[in-house]
């Protein structure tokens, strides 16, 4: 499974994050690994650096991880999470500048073919 780029979904809402991951799995299938996180540690809206790091680590592959985020803090916290990844893993993780739901489906569709992280990101961002 490590021969494909993985997808991580980061939303302020746990429901949006889970719903987006469900869409990706149902539309693209199980051949791409998908992780998601959303909400703050208190169960409200927000994003959490530790949760984002855990989501990335859970599907990490040297082939790459494409991260889809929603608003403001989701992006800045994802940037912090990527910087804090151990062993230089952050070099293989990129945030896609794309809408979270559409970008996640597009990125996963591209990733399913075994495409590079750069190609996956481009497909998500071309949407």
């Amino acid at each position, binding site marked *: 499974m490590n021969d494909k780029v993985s997808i991580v979904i980061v939303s302020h809402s746990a429901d949006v994050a889970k719903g987006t991951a469900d869409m990706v799995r149902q*539309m*693209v*299938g199980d051949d791409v690994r998908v992780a998601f996180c959303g909400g703050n540690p208190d169960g409200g809206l927000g994003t959490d650096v530790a949760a984002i790091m855990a989501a990335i680590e859970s599907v990490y592959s040297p082939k790459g991880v494409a991260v889809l985020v929603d608003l403001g803090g989701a992006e800045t916290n994802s940037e912090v999470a990527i910087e804090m990844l151990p062993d230089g893993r952050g070099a293989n993780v990129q945030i896609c500048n794309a809408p979270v739901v559409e970008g996640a489906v597009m990125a996963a569709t591209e990733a*399913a*073919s075994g495409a590079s992280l750069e190609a996956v990101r481009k*497909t998500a961002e071309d949407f």
Partner: protein
Amino acid sequence: MTGTVRDEDWVGGSAVILDPTGLHARPAVKLTKLAKTFQSAIEIRADDGTAWTNAKSPNAVMKLRAGHGLPLHIRAAGDDARAAVDALVALVDQNFND
């Protein structure tokens, strides 16, 4: 890639879209994933359109808005072009296994 293909190199086919919603998002993803398994250049065209679209681009396939009850035109060029067209025609014929 397709710019270098001569007209006579294309292998063609078509199949009618059965889904009442036309070629919507979920079938578009299936078509793209299948197209990407072939080496050949593969393009599709809606029956009411003149432009050929890269079948391996999920964005392009979804934007095609190919409608229900009309044939989807498929063409491919490359070593596995015949197999690619046959596989895509079969996918459309089977209503994307939905």
